[in-house]
């Protein structure tokens, strides 16, 4: 399991770090699907060993608590948690 690309409307560069088992991560993914935008996601709980460590460091550089979902928009803005309004606003800008 590694980064999965979901095609859609090109708006922003969206990277979603998520857990495959998490209800809020699923809701966040569904929101992006409903918005129909292009995005990438990665299920961090399905990674192993060095690959997992590397991605944990990546997430921690945006969000030191390293909790999920962590969404990075255009390599600039980071949204942690299923914050529907904040995500809609950031993406529709």
């Amino acid at each position, binding site marked *: 399991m590694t980064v999965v690309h979901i095609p859609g409307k090109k708006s922003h560069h969206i990277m979603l770090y998520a857990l495959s088992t998490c*209800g809020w991560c699923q809701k966040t993914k569904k929101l992006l699907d409903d918005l129909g935008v292009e995005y990438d996601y990665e299920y961090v*709980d399905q990674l192993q060993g060095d690959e997992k460590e590397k991605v944990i460091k990546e997430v921690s550089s945006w969000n030191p608590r390293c909790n999920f979902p962590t969404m990075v928009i255009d390599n600039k803005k980071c949204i942690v948690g299923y914050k529907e309004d904040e995500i809609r606003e950031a993406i529709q800008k």
Partner: protein
Amino acid sequence: MNEQGIAIAEIDRLYERLTREAEAAGYHLNPDVEFTKGLVSSLIINERRYGYWACPCRLASGTKKDDLDIICPCDYRDPDLNEYGVCYCALYVSNAVRKGEKKAGSIPERRPPPAERKRETRKKGRRLTGLSLPVWRCKVCGYLCAREQPPEVCPICKAKKDRFERFM
């Protein structure tokens, strides 16, 4: 089977057991049944993956002693229910949320970051002397009992023996 490869009957059985145990102890599962069964399915996945019910919404290390505080029900459930009306993954909700008087949402992470957790385990509690028996505290629900050893399973919240700490 659901999309995660877990048998629907297995999810339903665990969902019913958790509902029964929660209600008997004054807790409530999230009334959004579809969302909640998704979390129950994730608990089954984590049981298979790690050997214990690591919180579906937290990244488990896979080492049980480092994950003890996030084994469901986690050490943070009760303070989160008090403050936000939901636990971190929203499997459990307060009575107000269950009745629809308050909305369940995604809440901040209460679990301290790794460095702070290490410090916490090094702290030693003050022991009272002169007690005829040690007092054990369930770190999940706060249940206290005075006996030689903690119980196998907490009679209130069903947390296992390894979730107890020496309180006095």
